[in-house]
């Protein structure tokens, strides 16, 4: 965990914060969706400020280097997010199809 990675994490967190605030201002993101991204950016800051967390956990799990653990952690979180988004899209698609069918059937009744 060199200083460059720590600075980079903080910059990343600031960018995520800025993006979330912009989306909320434009009403393109709801409070419930912003929670995930704020926690995500918050985790960046925590690890940047207290790198000991990454050292302890990566040591405990047997990683060669704490930065490897940080990378894997971020990938895992994003993977889970992508997976739940895919499920959300499927659910939304189902609703759109049902509504579209209902409009057509009502017009026919």
């Amino acid at each position: 965990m060199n200083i460059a990675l720590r600075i980079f994490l903080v910059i990343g967190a600031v960018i995520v914060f800025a993006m979330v605030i912009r989306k909320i201002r434009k009403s393109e993101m709801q409070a419930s969706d912003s929670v995930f991204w704020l926690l995500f950016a918050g985790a960046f800051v925590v690890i940047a400020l207290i790198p000991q967390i990454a050292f302890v956990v990566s040591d405990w799990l047997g990683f060669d280097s704490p930065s490897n653990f940080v990378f894997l952690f971020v990938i895992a979180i994003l993977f889970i997010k992508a997976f739940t988004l895919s499920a959300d899209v499927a659910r939304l698609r189902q609703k759109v199809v049902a509504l579209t069918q209902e409009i057509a059937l009502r017009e026919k009744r």
Partner: protein
Amino acid sequence: MKTLAVIPAYNEEESIVDTVEELKAIAPQIDYIIVNDGSKDNTLAVCQEHGFNVLNLPVNVGLTGGFQAGMKYAWEKGYDYVVQFDADGQHRPEFIQKMVDAAVEQDADIVIGSRFVTEKKQASARMTGSALISGIIKLTTGKRIKDPTSGMRLYNRDMIKRFVYEPDFGPEPDTVAYLIRQGARVIEVQADMRDRTAGESYLSFSKSISYMMRTCTSILFVQWFR
């Protein structure tokens, strides 16, 4: 027996009129409904001009959702049988009554209008795909379906109900395989088909590959957990 032909149509302005006029002329005892699946061309206008019976979906939802809309219509109107009929002129209306008769006589849940009951498959890339799907259906259900990719299928009222209430029930081979495993009686009746009269086959090479992948994945994996 009240039978409804469900004709999914997406951008079919060139062929829909001939298809429906032929259906009305040759099989006047069969009702029909065109499901206009959010076409971007003049399919809807052409149908209204000719006074056809249309169910108009305001946006495109794809074959599964479009066909399900037709099934919901059939369910509400109390039809005994639904036949899935292509808008592009491939299917021949003279075979619909034969399929209905076979369904009644043999008490079948699904009747497939099959190109290969009495005729033999010729060897081609498309038929290799068909044979592969036949193979995995045989493997997973124990039943030999000679023409699983035929798009001309007749469903009885029990099956109509299932299409209405279950999501992700596409009018495709994987659904047929699933229903066989659930105890549905599926038979095949010889039905000759024409080559397309208008438009291009929607099964281009890349689409064929993704169709095969999706169908095989669905039959071999997804359906065991539905």
